[in-house]
């Protein structure tokens, strides 16, 4: 076969390949894929995180800080309680504290803010004294494990504030470091 013929055929193939069609994505597919990705991506990551938190908690003897009665249908309850629950941590030794929020109804777009004293950090958020998430709660009990690390012997109070619309409550946890 002559080189000229080969070149001509190559050009013809290239022209065909350039024209080789591909269907458009299904209408609305991109938007749906984005929504699914953010929901599913969060869920998968959360599951890993929760399982990791529980594994550590079980290994550490499961410190459970139960904050019951976060009933947003009964606003006006005094913040915190008369007695502030407390834990004792060992310096530089991570410890998981499980917060349990009970809600009588599903809550979309609630805001959870954790405030940490100097010397107490949350795993994965080095140096941050205040961490805020937008979150959703199911009806019933909702569990949030917080993995804390004491980086100094000072200790102090950890505050967790949950807000939804114009309602909210703040819970306190006294952390002492041995």
């Amino acid at each position, binding site marked *: 076969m002559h080189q000229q013929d*080969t070149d001509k*055929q*190559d050009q*013809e*193939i*290239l022209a*065909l*390949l*350039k*024209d*080789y*069609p*591909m*269907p458009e*994505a*299904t209408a609305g*597919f*991109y938007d749906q*894929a*984005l929504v*699914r*990705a*953010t929901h*599913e*991506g*969060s*869920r*998968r*990551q*959360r599951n890993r*995180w*929760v399982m990791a938190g*529980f594994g550590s908690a079980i290994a550490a003897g499961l410190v459970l800080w139960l904050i019951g009665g976060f009933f947003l249908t009964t606003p006006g309850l005094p913040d915190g309680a008369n007695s502030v629950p407390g834990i004792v941590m060992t310096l530089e030794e991570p410890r998981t504290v499980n917060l*349990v*929020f009970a809600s009588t109804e599903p809550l979309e*777009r609630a*805001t*959870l803010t954790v405030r940490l004293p100097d010397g107490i950090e949350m795993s*994965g*958020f080095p140096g941050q004294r205040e961490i*805020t*998430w*937008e*979150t*959703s*709660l*199911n009806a*019933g*009990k*909702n*569990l*949030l494990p917080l993995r804390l690390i004491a980086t100094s012997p000072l200790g102090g109070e950890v505050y967790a504030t949950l807000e939804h619309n114009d309602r909210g409550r703040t819970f306190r946890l006294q952390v002492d470091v041995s």
Partner: protein
Amino acid sequence: MLAYATIRAEIATRGFSISSAQDTFERLVRPHFDRLYRLAWRLCGSKAEAEDLFQELLIKAFSKLDDLVSIAEPGSWLSRVMYNLFIDERRRFARRRMHTVEEGEMSGEGISGLPGNADPVRDHERLQRMQVLERALAQLSDEHRLIVLLHDTEGYKLTEIQELMELPLGTIKSRLHRARSRLREILSADGTFF
């Protein structure tokens, strides 16, 4: 036993609120959607699997948002993640590909979904030529088919394919050359093409 539902979401997006994470994610990935979708299609060869792969990519990318925000060229990174996803689950996608060969002939899918113009005869000729090309492409190895489609159809540069596949440039060039030669052989032997 865990009887508690868990608070949704947040740790996936350290440092972001959920809404800002979604906004950030969309801002980073949406500009690359068309190109990524085309890559998914070229990898999988059918719409259902392409959309499945595309979806898997976005889920994986969102869970790595912390990494994504610091990447200078998100498009290249996303393409590479998609390619690796495809390779990792090749058996799954390859199996599906076999199952969906006929799907390409369904209405609105593949070459039968070619937009028509005012000339039905030309439409018909074009459709026939594309069907011949498609059969020829199907005879190539996966590696050869992908390289020729990315380079000659999608316009990827050789260096972009090299980055995507993490192969030496020489290997990419030789595969492209062999793929074109093989296509020429197949189409010549077919007798209906040249």
